[in-house]
């Protein structure tokens, strides 16, 4: 096993993501939804609802959760897990803010 340092990619300024909204980052492997809460916390999940693959980036962000636009499953932004009675989990990725810019840990994000 090889150790690799985190591979932080600058994906743009924070203000390019609407508060209580999301934007996507397209990679060869998958689309990643980057969410910004009203409190300027950010989270990154694979842009697929664990239910039927709905684009989570299009959902209504409330608190640290997002409601999938297709069937209203509520997904926890931190863990990617469905909340309430629903079961399933969207993959989550590491993301951080530095000096007003958003960085995504890309080595994991583009891994299979």
């Amino acid at each position, binding site marked *: 096993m090889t150790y690799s340092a985190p591979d932080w*990619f600058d994906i743009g300024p924070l203000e390019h993501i609407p508060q209580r909204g999301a934007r996507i980052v397209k990679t*060869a492997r998958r689309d990643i939804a980057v969410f910004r*809460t009203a*409190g300027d916390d950010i989270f990154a999940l694979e842009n697929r609802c664990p239910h039927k693959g709905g684009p989570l980036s*299009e959902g209504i962000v409330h608190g640290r959760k997002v409601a999938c636009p297709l069937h209203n499953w509520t997904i926890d932004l931190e863990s990617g897990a469905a909340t309430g009675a629903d079961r399933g989990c969207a993959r989550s990725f590491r993301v951080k803010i530095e000096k007003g810019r958003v960085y995504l840990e890309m080595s994991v994000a583009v891994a299979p």
Partner: protein
Amino acid sequence: MSEEAQRTSPRLVVVGNGMAAGRMLEELFQRAPDKYRVTVFGAEPRVNYNRIMLSPVLAKEKSYEEIIIHDEAWYRGKGVRLHKGETVVSINRAARTVTTASGRVEAYDQLVIATGSTPIAIPVHGVTLPGVVTFRDLDDVETMIDQAKPGRRAVVIGGGLLGLEAAAGLKAHGMAVSVVHLMPTLMERQLDPSAGYLLQKAIERRGVDVFTGANTQAILGDASVTGVKLDDGRVIPADMVVMAVGIRPNARLAKEAGLDVNRGVTVDDFMRTSDPHIHAVGECVEHRGQCYGLVAPLYEMAKVVAARLCGENSAAYQGSLTSTKLKVSGIDLFSAGDFGDAENDEIVLRDPSRSVYKRVVLRDNRIVGAVLFGETEDGAWFFDLMKKQTDVGAMRDTLIFGQAYQGGSPLDPMAAVAAMPDDAEICGSNGGCKSAITSAIARDALTSLDEVRAQTKASASCGQCTTKVEALIAAALGDKYKAANRKPMCKCTDLTHEEARGLIISKKLASMPAVMQELGWKSSCGCPSCRPALNYYLLCAWPLDYKDDAQSRFVNERVHANIQKDGTFSVVPRMWGGLTTPHELRAIADVAERFRIPTVKVTGGQRIDLLGVKKEDLPAVWAELNKAGLVSGHAYAKGLRTVKTCVGKEWCRFGTQDSMGLGVKLERLLCGSWTPAKVKLAVSGCPRNCAEATVKDIGVVCVDSGFDIHIAGAAGLHVRATDLLGHVETEEEALEHVAAILQLYREEAAYLDRIYKWVEKTGLARVRAKIMEDHDARRALYARFLISQRAVRKDPWAERVAGFGAKEFTPLAVVMPIAAE
């Protein structure tokens, strides 16, 4: 200090004589009074004073003498050589000397940089005019006091901590004061929107005008300031402008000396700069990416610097949790930690009648943030629990009531009401005490909430005390009480949709935070169920003033297209009354080919649906359709969808009126309007009803003598034939009546109720009376409808094509391998 020590002990030079430097020296002398020969350079011509008390000085509540921390005697007593009014202009790190503006050179063994911060001046025209001041030091305060005369006008740019304190201070001098703030709510970095709303109300109550969401374009004036111009064109007259948009670390000296500088002078956990002989402390510092502008962190840093200078190698600074208070007398607010939007786990307590708002945010049973407004006694307690990361799981139910309430058992609301004394106030709005309500229940044999409301007015205004009043009725009637079939909007409130709507109007609530505070919402910012509803109610109530909140809308309404199961969208252009032209069809065909749109389908509403459009293609697709004159069909909206028509008398041998023409006119009149749920219309040219008008929300059936107007049909999950509302003779009347029906529905229905649902609740007879019989009421409805249409008379597609919210449609970033794997 002995003479020997005077000559041989190491030399410590401190650049800056503010609060951080002062506290560092105190900490140092406590540990080792004689270790260093200390020299201090202060740019201000005075001793160290308490900068955070400048607001009370400005407000004439305190004098300069009262805020001095270290007087001349203190420096003398500690053997400190203090050079007041002497600015250090350079550091020679190789020679270990500093040079001042007057040319003095001072050698050091250890140097501490404590240069503080400088106010930020926004780069607008006029910023250098006489009359523009900052609010940073005593000179600024003296300038302001000098210019602050009753009747003169001041504009404070910046609605943060400093700006609001300046505004309150100037108001105390009798000036007319306005605050101009860029963000939608005041102090948005320290407060959430609910507390920001209350703060604005409190500031305005003191006679200060507040402009939020206001961007300063220029400061006006020739010889001196005459006003501030906002980018929306408004001009606020001013004789003085206070620049209070923020501070930036003053790191110039360090930077020129070649030290590592980012936003501030970068230091490690030992407060060391990149030069081992130089420490830095205070607002000029950047530690772990963080710069601080509050006093508590400066003190923590000062302690570490002093300890390090005394050789305590274990001392380290870990960063600070900060809390905020506003020093404006009569306004109590407190905030600490992270409370942005963690509604996942929060406890909220609001008391609208006393303007109290308390919110504690938890994560894993630990407090991570708190915002208090109106009652802040427990701020320190919450902050302490937060810093110690205490598990508060066991006191969760009573936590929000504060420290005094801990240890008791949570109250059962029923028992609590029963235990209240007779004169206890139940309804704060209408002054109903417990006995007034219970005696009315007994005297008039009241059995329901509505009856109690009608007789006593209790719970009839804001509905805050509904639960308590219901508990009183239940206690009086016992098992006989059947709780009314009231369905609250959601878990954030006990109010029904209709009650909330009514209160938005009667209390003139104009923003989401206003609604949530004044109606006692149980969450800090609502949920996906109440937010879209409130957004609609506000839009409907204040069509010309309320600013639509896109993030409170379902994706379809945000992007003006319908999301499909694979995440692509469908696009439906309007075809007025179901009519189209070869030109439009050609444009649709071109778009379908050019963007490889996989499915083209005719809809049930007589138009064409383009299915499978990728989100990033939407603006280009709209642009192409716009060019051919096609606009959004709002097929995604809670609003007017289609007006279906049959051919009518223009062609049909049975047709009695021009049903196509009326359909087109209706669609043009009503389109773009937001409604509680979708609205579909149809116009049939004769009673054979080929347009199926009698299963629509509103249907018009043409007859020889005019037009029959039907409402409340449905043909979906629920199938229902319309009810005949009435008959009109002319086309103009038909248009006015239909628009008035739509407006009545817009103003009264609960969000997501289709027209048939609303009519079932409110009663057909009532709608008929308002529309067909009360001509004044109908005309007023029609007039209000036309006003609200003014605000939406633009094609959302064209707006988007023009670039409005363009970021919605493009990825934030695209990360693709340069070569194939």
